[in-house]
Structure formats: C-alpha cells, structure tokens
C-alpha cells in the first residue's frame, strides 16, 4: 500500500526567503546573509526563484468529526531485502513473484510490473495468470496485456476490496520499501528504475476523465521554523533487524528518494505575505496522488477491454499455482504471501487512514504537527502519525482493526491550524 506518511520529509531552504531576493535592497541583504552562512555551491545550485505571487484564497477544509465517514486500516508488507521479484518453479509452472512493496506498492506498481512481466516473458508464454488483484496484480496484468499476452487474474477480491484500497494513495515510492543493509546497494538501482518508470506511467493518467491521477498543493505548517527531520542511528540501540528480525530504529530503513529529486517536486518556503494560514511557518510542495475509484475503474476497463478474464477464487498453498492451466504465474498477493507462501520475511507494518466527506473545492493538503490531510476525489485523507519514530510506526503490528479515536484526535489537533486568516 502507499505510504501512510504521504509526503516526503520537507527540506527547508534555511536562511533564504526566495521571494526576498526579488525585492531589491532587502533581497540583497538576504542574499548576502545566505552567502555568509552557506556554502557557495548552494547559491549556484539554487533553483530559479518563483514569480511573485499572492496570498492564495484557500477554501477552508472542514475537519469537524461529523465529516468523518470512514476509517480504514491495512498492513503494509515490508521485506527487509525489498520486494520479492524472484522466480521459482512449482512443478512445471514458472512463478514470478511481485509482492512485498511495503508502503510503496502504488508508487512502484508500474516499474515493478515491468520487471515481473519481463521475467514472465523469458519462457515465451502466450498466456499467463496473475494471482492477486491489488494494485500490483492489476497493474501486472495490464502490463502483460500490453506485451501481447492473454491474461487471467485469479483473486479472492477485485482491487476495491483489497488492502491496496486502504492506502493513503500518494506518491511515496520509498516508504518502508526495504531496510538499507539487507537490501544492499544494488537495490537502490532497481528501486530507481521502478520509481522512474512508474512516475512516467502515472503521468499518462493525468487529466483523464475522473482524474485517476492528479497533483495538488500540499502545505507543511509549523509553529517553529521548519527543519528537515533527521533520524540518525542511535548508538544506544544495539538490537537491529539483523538480530531480531524486526527493524529497531528508523535509521535502518532505506531512503532512496534523493535519486529522483530531479523529477519529483521539492518543497519551497512560502513567504509570510503569501501564507494563507495563521500558522507562521509554511512550506508548499506539489504532491501526486491517486484517486482510487477512478484509477481502479480505468485500469479494470483496460484489462477487460483487452480481453482479460477475472476468476474469483482463493488459494491455499503454492501447489495450487501449479494446477492452473497457465504455466506462467505472476504472484502478486501482497501481505497475504506471508501465509500463502510462508514468507515470514514479510514484516507487517500497520497503518490507518480516516476519510472525511469529499471536498473537491478545497483541493489541497495540509500537514501540521503529526497530522496530515490530503483532499482527494473520494474524500479527505486524515493520518495521525508520529514523526519522531518515522518509519517505525506500526512495525510488527498486524492488527488491522481501525481505531476511530486516533483519527478523531487528529482532527482536534489540526483544526486550529486550519482557521482562516482574517482579511
């Protein structure tokens, strides 16, 4: 599932208000200040300053408890070594695994499917099976069709009732996707390949009817100057994944997002006279997100229009894969692979989202303290996280029962930050 933290950590462009540079004398002071306190290369590499703007008039997001219409909980399938993309033979059937994407399944779906289908094609099949119909299975099926294959999906649910539909649905390609050490350096290259291909693929859905994929402004609000949150390794913590099977601190997680910083928008400081909120410090970024109903409809339509077949069934073990008529099978069973394939390397990471009544006029996101809101077509996503423990939140927790109180608490915390600024 997609990360429940949603947005990447904000990197503050500390010591410089870019707008200030555009404003004559005060700008020069600002620039001088920057040169005095920052390495010269920062100036050289600074992106062009944005054009002068105005304080945007945002329609306030309604976050009263009466707006809460759903609470969804799901488990991300984290594997220390990263997603399983290996192949194995079960009898005479080639099984290509494509599961275990942590909180990055949506975000990496196209690139991961490209790799899995490439491996499936290695034995020149004319038809294949895909087991699982979450975002990874459905995308794998469509990619296989585009490669000319006849595809049957076998799954106990279509995507709308899978864990994929309980994600937050933002582009978060390195959320709990692997642990740095066991994944090794080579995984970074595979990750980048998947992330770049997925990014381009998602862009082909922008502007389509129903907006299956879209961008929105996202504001990071703070009472204090915003600094990038770091999670350095705590030397006092001796235990680690290596000796417990579970990550013990945030620094064990792999961070790969810097590899695609050239294409993914980065946050910028919003100067005080453009700040639409009463909270003093604000950054704005552009966040790509997925509108689940529209996206599922679009992908399922392509699948069925392309002659795809869906068979509703469950599986009880790997041997049943060998009994399928198709002799090449992509296994996209997500967290369910933990039991079905006895893959105990899958670490459950619990996550939860609350959903407010859709507010399409207020098409933006807000992050304040440990709360995040994202306005999407099927509702305003609410997440109550804990930035201090970062990726560790929910690790080892396979309880999938929603906790409404946690979301109600989130609404209370963020409400004051959304109060409209007086004219």
């Amino acid at each position: 599932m997609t990360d429940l933290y949603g947005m990447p950590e904000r990197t503050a462009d500390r010591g410089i208000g870019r707008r200030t540079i555009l404003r004559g004398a005060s700008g020069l002071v600002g620039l001088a200040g920057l040169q005095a306190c920052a390495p010269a290369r920062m100036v050289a590499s600074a992106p062009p300053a944005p054009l002068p703007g105005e304080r945007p008039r945002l329609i306030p997001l309604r976050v009263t408890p009466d707006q809460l219409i759903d609470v969804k909980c799901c488990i991300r399938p984290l594997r220390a070594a990263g997603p399983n993309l290996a192949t194995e033979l079960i009898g005479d059937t080639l099984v290509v695994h494509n599961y275990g994407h942590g909180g990055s399944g949506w975000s990496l779906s196209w690139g991961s499917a490209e790799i899995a289908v490439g491996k499936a094609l290695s034995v020149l099949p004319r038809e294949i099976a895909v087991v699982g119909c979450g975002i990874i299975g459905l995308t794998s099926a469509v990619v296989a069709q585009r490669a000319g294959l006849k595809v049957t999906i076998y799954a106990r649910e279509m995507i709308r009732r899978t864990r994929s539909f309980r994600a937050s649905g933002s582009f978060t390609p390195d959320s709990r996707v692997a642990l740095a050490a066991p994944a090794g350096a080579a995984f970074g290259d595979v990750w980048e390949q998947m992330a770049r291909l997925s990014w381009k693929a998602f862009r082909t859905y922008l502007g389509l009817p129903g907006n299956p994929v879209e961008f929105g402004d996202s504001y990071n609000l703070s009472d204090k100057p915003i600094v990038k949150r770091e999670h350095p390794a705590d030397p006092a913590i001796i235990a680690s994944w290596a000796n417990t099977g579970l990550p013990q601190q945030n620094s064990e997680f792999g961070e790969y997002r810097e590899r695609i910083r050239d294409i993914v928008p980065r946050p910028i400081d919003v100067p005080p006279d453009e700040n639409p909120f009463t909270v003093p410090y604000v950054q704005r970024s552009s966040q790509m997100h997925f509108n689940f109903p529209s996206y599922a409809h679009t992908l399922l339509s392509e699948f069925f229009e392309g002659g795809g077949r869906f068979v509703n069934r469950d599986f009880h073990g790997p041997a049943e894969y060998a009994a399928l008529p198709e002799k090449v099978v992509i296994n996209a069973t997500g967290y369910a692979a933990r039991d079905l394939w006895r893959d105990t390397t899958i670490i459950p990471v619990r996550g939860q989202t609350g959903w407010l009544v859709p507010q399409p006029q207020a098409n933006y996101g807000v992050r304040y303290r440990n709360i995040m809101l994202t306005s999407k077509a099927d509702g305003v996503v609410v997440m109550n996280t804990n930035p201090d423990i970062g990726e560790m939140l929910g690790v080892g927790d396979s309880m999938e029962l929603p906790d409404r109180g946690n979301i109600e608490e989130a609404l209370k915390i963020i409400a004051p930050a959304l109060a409209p600024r007086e004219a």
Partner: protein
Amino acid sequence: MRGQTMRGVTGAVLFGAGLLGAGLPGGGGAAVARLAATPAFYTEAQAEQGAAIYGERCAMCHGAMLEGTYETPALTGKFVANWAGRPVGDLYDYLGRAMPQFAPGSLSGEDNARVLAYLLKANGYRAGQTALPADGAGLHRAVLPAPGPAR
C-alpha cells in the same frame, strides 16, 4: 447471534432442504440424502466453548454474527465455499497458523478445535459424539462437504 439461530441445525437444514427439494425438478431427495450423510466433526460442547473464544479473539474483526466487513472476510457464505471440498484439516491448520491476524499462532490446539467447531456449527454442519481432535489428527483425511442449501 447466528450461533444461537443455528441450534438444532441438523433438523432445520434437512427440513429446509426438503422443502427446497420439493420445488426443484429432481435432485431434492439426493440433496437430503447427502446432508443426512454429512459427517459430524465436532461436539456441541466444543462449539459452545468455541463461541466464547470466538467472542474474545475473533469477533472484533469478523463480527459478532461472523458477518465480516467490507475489508474483513465474513466467515459464512463465500468462506464456506472456499474451504468446502478440501480436508477440514486445511482449515484447522490455517486457523492455527494464521489467526488471529494480530497474533497468529496464538491459539492453542484445543482452542483452535473449539473455534473450528463453532464455525462449522454456525455454517450449518451438525454436531456429533466425537470431538474435533486438539492436535488435528486425522483431519487431513476428512473432507469438508458443502454445507447444504442456505436457509
């Protein structure tokens, strides 16, 4: 509680099947005969104990009536269709290995058998004189039949 409505389930199912069969061209008698031959896997006492365990360990996710949610599987209907036709030992193993999801493997063999008894009863399978074995012995040779026509 569905568990309560299923009390005396054998007679009720047979009766219901008989009525249904009367309205169908052929097959009704065969359905009744098949149901009458349905093996009894558990005892009434086990199912009663299982109901209590279910209430504590399972109902918070699967619902007091085994109805499930949009996200969590119901333990009737499709659930039975999924497990019928295969050894009842497969379901026993699955419960013991994978459930409850928040603490998989935490049910004792005895409690696992009790919960299984409760699920079988709630799905229309009849109780008998022989208890489900706590160690699952022999259950891989016993195929779970279709539960019979729903009432």
